[in-house]
C-alpha cells in the first residue's frame, strides 16, 4: 500500500509542529524520516495515526483520501505503529497483549486464547521473531518487547508500518536485529516509515530519506550521501561530526585521585584502588562498558557515595568526605549520567532548574527571599546563550527534548566558577546538533584551563573527546592510554585484558 501525506499542517498554539509537510512512502520501501528532536516527526506520525487531527492537509492511501478520527480508524485502514515507549501491559503474556482490544472470542464471549497464541506463533515463525506467546511481557528484554509491538501491528494486517525512534532503547546488537526485521517486512511488500536521528542507521537501511527541520520538510537525501551532508540538512548549517579541538596544553595537576576504594550499599567493592591525575586544561575520558564503576567514581567525587577510602584532591584540597554542597562550592561542575533523574526537576520551569544549585545565595536569593527578577534575566540570558529551544523560560523541563534538557543542565553547571568539570555520558540520547554543541562546551571548559573528567561508553566519543583515555573494568583502571590507541587494544582493555 502506498501512503501519501499531502500538505499536513498541525499547530500547537503558536507553534507549527508540522508546516505543510508532504511525504510519499511506497510499498516495498523503507522510508526514513530524519530530523532532530523537536523537528515534528512524531507529530506527523500521530496525525497519520489519528491521535491528532491535522489543521489542514490530506492523508491518502493508494491515492484515495482517508480521514482518521482515532487510532482505531487508522488500524482498520492498515496502518500500524511501533511507539518509542511501548504500549504493553507488563503482567500479561505476549499472546494476551497482542490481542488486547480486539480479542478473539469463542461462543459465549469466552476469550479464545488458543487462537491468539496460534496467530502469534504464525507471525513469529514467518518473520523469524523467536517470540514465545506464553512469555510474560515484563520479563522479556527490551528488544523482544519491541517485536511484540511489531506483532501487534502485523496481527491487524498492517500494510504501512511506522517505527518511531525504535532504536533509542536498543543495544547495538538488538539494533542490527531490528534492521533485519525491517528489511524482511519491506520485502514482504509493506511500506515502512522509520523515524530516527541516527545517521548510521539511515545509511544502512533506507531506500528513501526525507529530512525534516523545525516542522518543515527541508529535502530528500540519498543513502549514499555522506553523514555530514545529512547532518547539515537536519541541523540547517554545516556540522562537524568530528570533535574540533586543539592539542591540550596540560598545566599543573588539578585533580588527583589516589588509592580510591568505594563500597556500595550491599558492601560490594565497586572501585578498587583507583588512581589517576587530570591536569588543568586536559580532558581525561573514562572509557568502558557501562556498569564497571564509572558511575560510582563520579558519585564519589560529588560526595554521594558514603563508604570509601583513599583520596580525591582538587588543587590540593581533599574532596572525599565532603558534602555535595561543599564539593559544588569547591568549584566542581557536575553533569549527571541520568539528566531526568538527577539533573533536572521535571516539574520545574527552565528558570527554576537553572537556580537549583544556588537558590540559597546571592544573586539568586537575598536573606532567604528569591530574587525572581534576577532569575528571569539570568534564565533569559542562558536560554539565548545555550540556544535552548523552548516556549520560554517558564516552560517546564519535562516539555523539553533531551538535547534541550542537557543544555539547561550544562548552562547551570558551567555558569558557576569552575575548577573541575565532571560529565557522565554527556551526549547520551542526544541528536547530532546537540552532541556537537555539548562537545564544544566541554572543549571550551577545558580550554578555560580546568581539568575535565568525562565518562563515555561509546568508543568514538572517548577517542574524539579525550586527551587521554583511562579504561575501567570491574572497578579498576586497566590503563591510561593516548586517544590514538588502536581500537582493538581499547576493546581488549574494556573486556578486562591488559593492554
Amino acid at each position, binding site marked *: 500500500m502506498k501512503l501519501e501525506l499531502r500538505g499536513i499542517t498541525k499547530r500547537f498554539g503558536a507553534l507549527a509542529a508540522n508546516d505543510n509537510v508532504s511525504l510519499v512512502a511506497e510499498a516495498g520501501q523503507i522510508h526514513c524520516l530524519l530530523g532532530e528532536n523537536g523537528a515534528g516527526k512524531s507529530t506527523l506520525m500521530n496525525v497519520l*495515526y489519528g*491521535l491528532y487531527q491535522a489543521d489542514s492537509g490530506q492523508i491518502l492511501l493508494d491515492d484515495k483520501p482517508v480521514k482518521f478520527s*482515532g*487510532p*482505531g480508524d487508522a488500524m482498520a485502514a492498515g496502518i500500524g*505503529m511501533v*511507539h518509542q515507549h511501548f*504500549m*504493553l*501491559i507488563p503482567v500479561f503474556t505476549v499472546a494476551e497483549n497482542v490481542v*488486547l*482490544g480486539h480479542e478473539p472470542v469463542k461462543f459465549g464471549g469466552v476469550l479464545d486464547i488458543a487462537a491468539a497464541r496460534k496467530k502469534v506463533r504464525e507471525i513469529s515463525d514467518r518473520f523469524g521473531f523467536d517470540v514465545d506467546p506464553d512469555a510474560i511481557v515484563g520479563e522479556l528484554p527490551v528488544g523482544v518487547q519491541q517485536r511484540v*509491538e511489531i506483532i*501487534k*501491528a502485523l496481527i491487524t494486517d498492517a500494510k504501512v508500518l511506522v517505527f518511531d525512534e525504535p532504536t533509542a532503547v536498543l543495544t547495538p546488537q538488538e539494533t542490527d536485529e531490528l534492521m533485519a526485521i525491517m528489511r524482511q517486512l519491506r520485502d514482504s511488500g509493506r511500506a515502512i516509515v522509520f523515524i530516527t536521528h541516527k545517521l548510521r542507521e539511515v545509511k544502512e537501511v533506507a531506500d528513501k530519506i526525507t529530512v525534516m527541520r523545525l516542522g518543515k520538510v527541508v529535502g530528500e537525501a540519498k543513502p549514499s550521501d555522506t553523514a555530514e551532508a545529512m547532518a547539515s540538512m537536519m541541523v540547517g548549517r554545516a556540522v562537524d561530526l568530528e570533535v574540533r579541538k586543539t592539542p591540550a596544553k596540560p598545566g599543573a595537576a588539578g585533580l588527583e585521585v589516589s588509592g580510591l576504594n568505594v563500597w556500595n550499599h550491599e558492601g560490594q567493592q565497586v572501585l578498587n584502588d583507583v588512581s589517576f591525575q587530570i591536569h588543568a586544561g586536559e580532558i581525561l575520558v573514562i572509557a568502558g562498558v557501562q556498569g564497571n564503576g564509572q558511575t560510582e567514581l563520579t558519585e564519589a567525587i*560529588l560526595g*554521594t557515595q558514603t563508604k570509601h577510602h583513599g583520596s580525591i584532591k582538587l588543587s590540593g584540597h581533599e574532596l572525599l568526605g565532603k*558534602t*555535595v*554542597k561543599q*564539593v*559544588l*562550592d569547591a568549584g566542581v561542575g*557536575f553533569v*549527571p549520567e541520568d539528566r531526568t*533523574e*538527577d*539533573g*533536572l*526537576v*521535571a*516539574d*520545574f520551569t527552565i528558570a*527554576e532548574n537553572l*537556580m*537549583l*544549585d544556588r*537558590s*540559597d545565595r546571592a544573586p539568586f*536569593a537575598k536573606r*532567604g*527571599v*528569591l530574587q*525572581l527578577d534576577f532569575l528571569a534575566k539570568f534564565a533569559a540570558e542562558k536560554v539565548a546563550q545555550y540556544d535552548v529551544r523552548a516556549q520560554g523560560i517558564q516552560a517546564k523541563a519535562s516539555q523539553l527534548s533531551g538535547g534541550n534538557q542537557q543544555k539547561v543542565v550544562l548552562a547551570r553547571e558551567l555558569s558557576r566558577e569552575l575548577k573541575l568539570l565532571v560529565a557522565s555520558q554527556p551526549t547520551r540520547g542526544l541528536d547530532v546538533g546537540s552532541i556537537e554543541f555539548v562537545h564544544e562546551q566541554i572543549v571550551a571548559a577545558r580550554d578555560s584551563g580546568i581539568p575535565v573528567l568525562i565518562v563515555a561508553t561509546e568508543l568514538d566519543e572517548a577517542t574524539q573527546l579525550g586527551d587521554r583515555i583511562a579504561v575501567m573494568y570491574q572497578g579498576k583502571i586497566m590503563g591510561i592510554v593516548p586517544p590514538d590507541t588502536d581500537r582493538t587494544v581499547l576493546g581488549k582493555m574494556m573486556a578486562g585484558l591488559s593492554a
Partner: protein
Amino acid sequence: MISKFLRGNIALSVLAVLVSFVVGGILIALSDPTVQSSASYFTARPTDLLSAIWNAVFGAYDALFRGSVFNYQAATTTGMFKPITETLAFATPITMAGLGLAVAFRSGLFNIGGTGQIIFGAIFAGWVGINLDLPWILHFPLAVLAGVFGGALFGSIVGLLKATTGANEVIVTIMFNYIAALLLSYFLKTPFLQAPHNINPISKPILASAKYPAFLGPNFRLHAGVFAMLAAVALVWWLLNRSTLGFQFRALGHNPSAARVAGINIGLNYVLVMAVSGALAGLAGTSQILGTEGSLTTGVAASFGFDAITVALLGRNNPFGVLAAGILFGGLRAGAVTMQASQGVPIDIVFIVQSMIVLFIAAPPLVRSIFRIRAKVEAA
C-alpha cells in the same frame, strides 16, 4: 505514587464536591421516612414520592445553608449572620492544619500526623495560657508562639527520624498521633495540667490574657484566630513561591535525587518541612485552645487533624485552595447541626459527604489510569 495521588486540578475538586452532594442527596432521600412510606404506593400516586423526595432533599440542604451561611428564618440580625461566623470558626483550625499538611505534601512528605501536632500545639499553648500571669500584649503572643513551637517540635522529630534512620513518615506520624493523644490524657489526669480538685480530665481555664480576642463579642464563637488563618494562607503562599526554603521544599517534593545532586541538604530539609508543617498544625491547636475552647480537654483536636488531610487534598495543596476547602468543611460542620435539629437528618450524612469527597478525589487517578490503559490498547 503519593505525588500522583496528590496531584489534581480544580475541576476535579469541584466535581468531587458536586458529586458528593448528589450522593448525599440520594442518601437523605432514602433515609427519609416520608419518602419511604410514599414509595410503598408509588404506582398509585407517583407525585407523592417525588414531592417527598424534593421536600427531604431540599429541606436538608436548605437547613445546611441556614446553618452555615445565612439564616433567613432568624428573628434577629445577629441570628441571621451567626451561621457564617460558625462556619469560619470551624474553618479556622481546619484550614490552619490543612495548610501545614499541604506544605508537607508539596515537599513529598505524607504527614498524616496533623492530630498529634495539633494536640502538642494545644498542650504548649495551654500550659502557657494557664500558668503565666502576664498582660495580654505579652501573654497572648507568647502562648501562640508556644503552641506553634510545640507543633513544630513534634513535627520535626518525625523529620529527624526520617532523615537519620530512613523511617517512613506515614507510619511514624500515625504512631505519634497516639503518643500525643495518650500523653495529653495522662497530663490531664496529673497535676501538670489537671485542674485541682477535679476528677475529670480537664485543665484549669485558660486565662483571659492569653486568648484570641473575641472581636464579635461573647455571643459568637468566632475569634481573631480567623485573621491568623488568613495571614497563614498568605504566608504559606509566600513561603512556597517566593522563598529559598519553599523552593528547596518543592524541589525535594518533585525530585529528591536531583535536589541532592544540586547540593540541597535532603535530611535537613526533611526536618524543616516537618517543622513548618507541624508549626501550622500547632497554630491550629492554639486557635482551639486559646480561641474556641475554654480549657484543655482530650477532645481538643476533634477530627480536625484528619479533616485537614482532606482539605489539603481538596485544595490541591495550594494555599488558596486549602482556604476554600477549609471554609467548605467548616460550613459542612456548622450546617450539620441545624440539619439534624430542624430536619432530623442524621449528622452522619455530612460525614458521608465528606468521605465521598475523599473517595472521589482519590478515585480519579485510578479511573484515569484505567482509561489510559484502554487508550494504549486502542493506540496499539
